[in-house]
Structure formats: C-alpha cells, structure tokens
C-alpha cells in the first residue's frame, strides 16, 4: 500500500494518537453478530429456497455498503480532490476503496454460495454479476496503482482520476437487472410495489442493513485514522 498522501506544504508534523479498538467498532461488530443471530435462528426459512436464502441478510447489506456507499464516497472524494487538492480527501478515497473492496468481495463470494442452491451453479456470466466483478477488479486496480506510484502528488492525482471513473460503473450495475435479461433477481425490498418479503424477514433485513452500514463506517474510520498516522509518520521521517 502507499506510504504517504499528497502534501508538500504540511506544517510541523505531529503523530496523532490512534487506538485500534474503539466504541463504534465494538458497537457495530456487536450489532452485526446480533443481526446474524436473528437471521439464522429467529427468522423464518424461505419456503422455496430453504435456509440458504438467509445469505440474503449478508449479501444485500454488503452490496449496499460496498457498491453504493463505498463507491459513492470514492467518487465524491476523488472528484473533490481533483478540485481542491486536499490530502484528507485522498486518504478518504483510499480508505473507501479498500473497505469497499472488502464488502464487494463478500458480495462476490456469498452470491455464488447462494446461487449454487437456487440456480444450481456457482457462477453465471450474466450482466449484474459480471459487471460487479469488473468493478471489484477496477477498485483492486485503483489500490495497486496507488502502491505503484512513488510521488505522493502524482499518486493522489492519478488515483483520483481512476477512482472517479471506476465509480461510474455503479449506476450501470444498478440498472443491469432492468436493462438486460439475466438470472439475478429484481429488487425485492426497494421497488414501487410492496416488498416481496414477510414482516419478520423485512425487519431482519432492516436490522442487518443498519448493522453492516455501521460496520462499514467503523472500518472506514479505522482505515482513515491509520492512513493519517502513516502519513504523519512518513512526514516526520522526511522532515
């Protein structure tokens, strides 16, 4: 991973104090465990798909956090960086990309496990799955690019361009189930009609979504604070 972000006019650097475990992380992990316990033991089994349908409570919240929130933050921070050149935006984009990669990875792994039982195959090259894999590879490329460019200014500028372009795939991925005929199901919760789930399933999904989004922000905060500490240490060594 990269060693420092773009800044040449930093004041006298001081090392920030960073604690690994904080209240937000503990709370979010506890909520994720509680949501998982509720999903596994206290939510009805789907009549058609069986227990494997409960992967829905991991898969969809991870997709909301990884695709929409992480890639949205990556795009906004990247575009803002190109405009105002603030190193904090570069760090935010970098952190959103890495944590988003983790969440999208979970989407891409839990999806095939669920697909094996409902479609009878692990993988199908259909539009939504394939475009999500492409986005994951683009974000991975973004992080590899950051590690390959030595100059902090060049690294921040080039990765901001790549980050803002990569995130353009997200609206396309969202629309794939409408634009193309594929195996991936249509939305079951957020749609013009009533959600196609029972009240118990819907409340478990709501709880899991809040838990995973909170975990995303806890990990993002942790990653950002580490990047700040890393950059401050690099600035101190270069001073």
């Amino acid at each position, binding site marked *: 991973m990269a060693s420092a972000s773009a800044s040449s006019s930093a004041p006298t650097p001081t090392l920030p104090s960073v604690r690994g475990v904080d209240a937000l992380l503990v709370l979010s992990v506890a909520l994720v465990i509680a949501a998982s316990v509720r999903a*596994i033991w206290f939510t009805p089994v789907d009549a058609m798909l069986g*227990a494997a349908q409960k992967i829905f409570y991991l*898969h969809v919240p991870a997709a909301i956090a990884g695709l929409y929130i992480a890639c949205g933050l990556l795009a906004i921070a990247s575009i803002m960086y190109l405009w105002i050149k603030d190193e904090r935006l570069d760090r935010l984009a970098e952190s959103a990309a890495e944590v988003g990669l983790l969440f999208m990875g979970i989407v891409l792994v839990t999806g095939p*496990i669920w697909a094996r039982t409902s479609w009878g195959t692990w993988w199908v090259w259909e539009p939504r799955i394939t475009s999500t894999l492409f986005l994951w590879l683009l974000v991975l490329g973004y992080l590899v690019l950051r590690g390959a460019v030595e100059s902090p200014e060049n690294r921040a500028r080039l990765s901001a361009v790549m980050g803002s372009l990569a995130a353009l795939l997200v609206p396309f991925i969202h629309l794939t189930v409408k634009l193309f005929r594929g195996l991936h199901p249509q939305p079951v919760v957020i749609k013009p009609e009533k959600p196609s789930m029972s009240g118990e399933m819907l409340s478990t999904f709501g709880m899991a979504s809040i838990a995973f989004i909170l975990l995303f922000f806890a990990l993002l905060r942790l990653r950002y604070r580490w990047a700040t500490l890393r950059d401050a240490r690099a600035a101190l060594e270069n001073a």
Partner: protein
Amino acid sequence: MSMPIMMLLAAAQDTVAYVTKPSGPPDSSGYMWAGYAVTALAYGGYIALMLRRIARSNRGQ
C-alpha cells in the same frame, strides 16, 4: 433406469442441492453456514489486519 443413476450421481456430487425431500425446501443449511463463516472470516481478518497495521505504526515500524 438411467434417471435414478443420474440422481444418485448428482446426490453424490452435492448432497444439499439435489436431494429431494417429501415436502418443503431442500436442506441448504450447509450453504447458509458457509456464507456466514466466509463473511465472519473476512471481517475478522480485516479487523485483525487493521489492528496490526495500527500497532506497527504506533510502534514506529
């Protein structure tokens, strides 16, 4: 004759997805546990990685 053999082969390949039951959905709980285990490992591993990175940075390595 060939159909039962195919069913047996399919069942040997995957005992969860293909074995039919008299009523209700197939028992796919193994897949559910696999999904939750992979997710727990991924998040646990990333949190451990972040704690290690922060500890190393705090120590000045």
